[in-house]
């Protein structure tokens, strides 16, 4: 396990808490998918959610930007605070929340529009650009941040769906960061990508940490070890263990965590 953690990420001493979840329960109809999850996610940090399939890590992730609202049978209880504001408060409009909490999905899902329009869509609907020049600048900045600008700058009018899988995922990341979110949620962003594209996206995640709080769900423990500073291990809807990444991988407290990272369950 040691060799996986090739970067020793020093935790900065004073971390601000960005997201704070208390006693979160999620039900899908009669299924109790998330049980009593308490977690504090730091600002400007990459937090990884790991765990076997169906353990609820993606479900919990989707609670943070209320994407579960789109599923009719899903019901969320408990409190999730972002900057000390309850995002499930009746006064919160999920649409406004999602501008603040961006999301990148498991499968690259660019709009069937041009590369430019893909990135410009968010800023346009949120009115972030006053004119075309500003919009151009946002598009260029987002694509550069997503390490895609050099590859696509000559064909911004080409369809986003015509890019390769890795490029599409980076386009989706560019699209997510174009609306200047404060939190970026990533649901297994590399599961459909080859190792080279994965490495590019991982480098990107590390860079995004400068500006956002990044929460990433991943099936790959190596990936969690490579990119994250803190790791949460979910099992059967419970948050089993949550600690600094190197601690989870080298000295897990819970026997279930140990079994999982050593490959005995999951």
């Amino acid at each position, binding site marked *: 396990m040691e060799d996986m953690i090739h970067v020793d990420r020093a935790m900065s001493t004073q971390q601000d808490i960005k997201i704070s979840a208390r006693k979160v329960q999620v039900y899908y109809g009669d299924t109790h998918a998330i049980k009593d999850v308490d977690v504090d996610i730091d600002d400007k940090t990459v937090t990884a959610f790991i765990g076997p399939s169906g353990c609820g890590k993606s479900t919990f992730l989707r609670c943070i*930007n209320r*994407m579960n609202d*789109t599923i*009719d049978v899903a019901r969320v209880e408990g409190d999730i605070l972002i900057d000390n504001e309850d995002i499930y408060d009746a006064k919160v409009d999920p*649409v*406004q929340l*999602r*501008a603040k909490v*961006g*999301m*990148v*999905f498991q*499968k690259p*899902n*660019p*709009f*069937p529009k041009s590369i430019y329009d893909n990135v410009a*869509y*968010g800023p346009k*609907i*949120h009115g972030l650009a006053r004119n075309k020049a500003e919009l151009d600048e946002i598009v260029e900045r987002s694509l550069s941040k997503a390490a895609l600008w050099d590859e696509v700058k000559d064909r911004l009018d080409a*369809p986003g*769906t*015509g890019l390769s899988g890795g490029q599409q995922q980076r386009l*989706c990341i560019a*699209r*997510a960061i*174009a*609306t200047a979110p404060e939190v970026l949620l990533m649901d297994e962003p590399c599961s459909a990508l080859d190792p080279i594209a994965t490495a590019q996206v991982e480098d990107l995640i590390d860079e995004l940490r400068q500006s956002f709080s990044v929460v990433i769900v991943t099936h790959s423990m190596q990936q969690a070890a490579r990119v994250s500073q803190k790791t949460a291990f979910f099992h059967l809807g419970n948050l089993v263990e949550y600690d600094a990444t190197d601690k989870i991988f080298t000295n897990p407290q819970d026997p279930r965590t140990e079994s999982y990272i050593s490959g005995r369950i999951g």
Partner: protein
Amino acid sequence: MTDATSSAPAAAPSPAQHASLLSESPRMKKRNAAETRFKMYGVIAISIGLAFLVFLAYSILRNGIPAFTQTVVNVEFTLTQEQFDDAESKLLKTAAYTDIFVEGVTAQFQEKGLNVEFDGDTIERLLGKVGGDLRTFYRENPDQIGQPVQLQLPAASRVERYLQGRLTRDMVVDGRFLEVADLDVVDVMVDAGIIGSAFDWNFITGTDTGVDNPGGAGIGASVIGSFFMMLVVLLLSLPIGVAASIYLEEFAPKNKFTDLIEVNISNLAAVPSIVFGILGLAVFIQFAHLPQSAPLVGGLVLTLMTLPTIVISTRASLKSVPPSIRDAALGVGASKMQAVFHHVLPLAMPGILTGTIIGLAQALGETAPLLLIGMVGYVAREYPDGLTSGLLDPNSAMPAQIYTWAARSDEAFFEKAWGGIIILLIFLLTMNIIAIILRRRFERRW
């Protein structure tokens, strides 16, 4: 190959465990035979279908093509100034022209050595009101007096059928329309070589006639009637249908009530169209007092009938848009409506358009509801003279016109009915082609 087969037994000492790949196992043979049989069934089914289609197309064309042509009598005729002045001075002017025409034609026959006696009544039975037509022509073109003029006179439908061999002398009973002696004149005309055929534009552009004049009947007015009905159907059912589908599919809460609506929409699509007809009669004509036989009422009834088709196809195409697109839009903070209108609807457009055009095509060919609101049987003798008149004045529609013709006792109308079917099929084909083109065009926008 020889190497492989010769070495196979050596390499496989126990055939039960190591069967050669080069020979089919009994089980494989069975499976392949089943597949071959299944393909055969498919080929047979398609062949039967094609045979029916070919037979249908053949009989429609065979029976319908004659409706587009018309038997004409070509006569070269010269009217002198004296004859003109003489005829104009008479009391019965058109009769005078007819007599002049009879004289002229008889003289032409005699030049060719053909002798036949006939009078103005015969000519009227064979060629219609020639005298009146001649008078109108010469009064409008006085410079043609004294010049030889080529006249092309449409023959009565009975003459046409006599020439086709479908009417024999002993079938002629009603002397009002045709006498047996008239057929002698026709025989002489054939000998003189003046009978030909011409394309009948009147069939396409003309209006319907009464039961006694099959030759002059045209489908034009009912095409206009159908056009106005389709206009009403399109303008009402497309926006209502698409809006209803978007609401039900994307916004409506999923509960017992919306389930009930959904089941009812599916059932409505299967309701016999005559039910919509009687509904239209009760609601639009008896309750709302809209005019009978009006394309507006027809369009409203057909809208009711088309709506379920459009709703179902629109919902299906909305459903087929991958949910990842909705997630993507919501994920960047689009509102539900923005997600639907910016991303889902454009992708669903080809399906919506196809469904709409198929619904329209279905409505175009629908006859049963029109029976009940009085469009079948209405003799569309006039063209509407504008939008309001087109919507509110009584008119017929293509399928209703075909039905009316097929129901008339005079056999000559059958051919008109077949011809009408050809026109209707051309319209349906055009609509389907438009559907395909639109689908291609929208799909190209990835």
